[in-house]
């Protein structure tokens, strides 16, 4: 460590930096982050056009699905190639309730979570005995098997037309897109705060322990099968809520909204965002919403046919997925953390930031943990 050139200035900066640090207690920390996020998103959504509000809402709903998938694959080590199927179950559950009953809106959303969680239980129980590629194949089959069921019983599920959904009336003069975006953002923030707390709790630790070494985890007294099923159920429930929100965004729920491509794009977005992180899922969701648009304009620039633009998005997703897996498996959030780590190291050389021994035991106690869990 080189001594700072001007000691007084460095000390002043250190205090200033120290005061800006978030609380280390997880709940308080996550709530503060969520409230800041909510404030930013409120300002953003009220200044955007209705169409952009719609997109922000879509980002929020994908954050919900991706966070669940990140928990399952990144934290618990179980892969799912069929999360689109859980989204479909959630969407159909809400749409069926909206068509046939007049339940409270929140109850309808909870029902979508419940329905998807039950399917998660059905798939999660056999999944406890399966290793990577077997589980991948089974969930892939799930993604292909569920949509045709809705076509088979088309009187119940509305066939090609699908079922319509209704968003509860917006209060006051709020325009409906902004209102829906708000419902979705609130949902996303609640889910992310809950998951962030879960990951810092005993559950989070057992999830990671099972991922890293099942045998060691079971020797340490962890019920491996139960832990894996719980992770699957939570993840499926998140996907169910995301599906219900997707149904609200599009106004109809039909099988065309849940092709195999959706499941694969979710996987790709999760990998690109940063497997196992929650913060990275926001980057993944942004890609999921905007990449198809960018590729459409790109194919316009290259004068590709109109049919090609849909495929171009798929190709870009696939190529980026392969390249990311080979070259940068930690995704965008991993890259950001690496960059932040470099900045911190650079800063500590100047005597500016990062908790060190001189700042007292409280800072060091949580120091390394924060670096790992700050996403």
């Amino acid at each position, binding site marked *: 460590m080189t001594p700072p050139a001007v000691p007084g200035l460095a000390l002043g900066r250190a205090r200033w930096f120290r005061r800006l640090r978030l609380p280390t207690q997880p709940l308080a920390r996550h709530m503060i982050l969520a409230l800041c996020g909510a404030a930013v998103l409120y300002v953003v959504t009220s200044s955007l056009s209705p169409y952009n509000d719609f997109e922000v809402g879509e980002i929020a709903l994908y954050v919900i699905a991706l966070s669940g998938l990140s928990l399952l694959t990144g934290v618990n080590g179980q892969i799912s190639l069929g999360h689109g199927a859980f989204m479909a179950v959630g969407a159909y559950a809400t749409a069926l309730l909206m068509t046939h009953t007049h339940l409270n809106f929140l109850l309808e959303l909870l029902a979508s979570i419940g329905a998807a969680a039950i399917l998660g239980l059905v798939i999660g129980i056999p999944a406890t005995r399966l290793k990577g590629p077997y589980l991948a194949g089974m969930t892939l089959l799930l993604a292909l098997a569920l949509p045709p*069921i809705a076509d088979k019983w088309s009187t119940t599920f509305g066939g090609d037309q699908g079922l319509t959904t209704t968003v509860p009336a917006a209060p006051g003069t709020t325009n409906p897109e902004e209102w829906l975006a708000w419902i979705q953002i609130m949902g996303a923030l609640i889910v992310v705060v809950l998951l962030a707390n879960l990951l810092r709790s005993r559950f989070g630790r057992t999830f990671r322990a099972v991922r890293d070494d099942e045998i060691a985890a079971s020797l340490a007294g962890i019920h491996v099968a139960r832990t894996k099923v719980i992770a699957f159920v939570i993840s499926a429930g998140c996907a169910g809520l995301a599906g219900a929100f997707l149904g609200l965004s599009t106004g109809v729920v039909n099988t065309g909204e849940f092709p195999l491509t959706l499941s694969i794009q979710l996987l790709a977005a999760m990998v690109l965002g940063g497997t196992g992180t929650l913060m990275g899922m926001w980057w993944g969701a942004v890609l999921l919403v905007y990449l198809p648009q960018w590729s459409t304009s790109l194919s316009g620039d290259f004068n590709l046919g109109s049919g090609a633009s849909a495929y171009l998005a798929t*190709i870009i997703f696939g190529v980026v997925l392969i390249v990311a897996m080979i070259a940068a498996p930690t995704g965008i959030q991993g890259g950001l953390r690496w960059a932040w780590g470099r900045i911190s190291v650079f800063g500590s050389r100047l005597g500016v930031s990062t908790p060190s021994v001189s700042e007292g035991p409280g800072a060091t106690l949580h120091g390394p943990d924060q670096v790992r869990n700050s996403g």
Partner: protein
Amino acid sequence: MGLFVNITLDGLANGMIFAALALALVLIFRATRIVNFAQGAMGMITTFIASSLLGRGVAYWWAFLAVLAIGFVLGALVERVLIRPLQGKSELNPVIVTIGLLVVLEGVAGTIYGNSSRGFPAAYSQSGLTVGHTKIAFSHFDVFILVSVLVLMIATLVLFRATSLGLRMRASAFSGEISRLLGVRVGLLLTLGWALAGVAGSLAGLLVAPTSSFSPYFMDLVLVYAFTAAVIGGLESPVGALIGGLITGLSISYVGGYLGSGLQPLGALVLLMVALMARPEGIFARPPARRV
């Protein structure tokens, strides 16, 4: 009764096709412990190439052979370029990379050939044979399917059981390090395993295409059925792939014939879940030994 016989015959022909693709999955799993989820898409892209060749007036059998060769090269290329860098990493990485390859290949096929499904010719007549005075749902083409997949299976078995090359392939799959010490070129043989799987996948594509709507996605379901077949057979044994293929083909056919074709994937899912619950290691696999 007639319906039952026809459904059974249909299931038999489909089962043989699933067995061919399952064999491809088995060849790769034996060699590299990876399930290649892009195997179906690789068969799809080679079949589209065959379609282009036929469109340019190339004779069917030349196109057939050319496409098998292209499948061979494609399989080797994929192993060298995409799979080799993943050696020694988490087992989820190759799953994700092969899924990425799957969507890239489908996207490329969609961009070049469009989404509209086109026809693909069969090698032989597809109208049913006549036995006695009744016409059955088994055509000359189905006989060709049966024969070509059996030839492929027997060739694979002969390769593995009766040649020194096959012995070396088995050895390098069994224990790469020891084989390398004994002078076996393990890397080359792993590539060969992928290349042979590419041939089997191409054959499956050529056999499926005439009877399905020939679009970039036509191998998706075939792949998951083949996966089901391979898992039933234990993912390690070519004979298991054949029997798993027939079990899957017949089950799918009965579900389709009696309950409706929309429930076929669900039937396969149930079959796969039952198979995994009852015998996770498959029917023909060696007794399980868990790696700690």
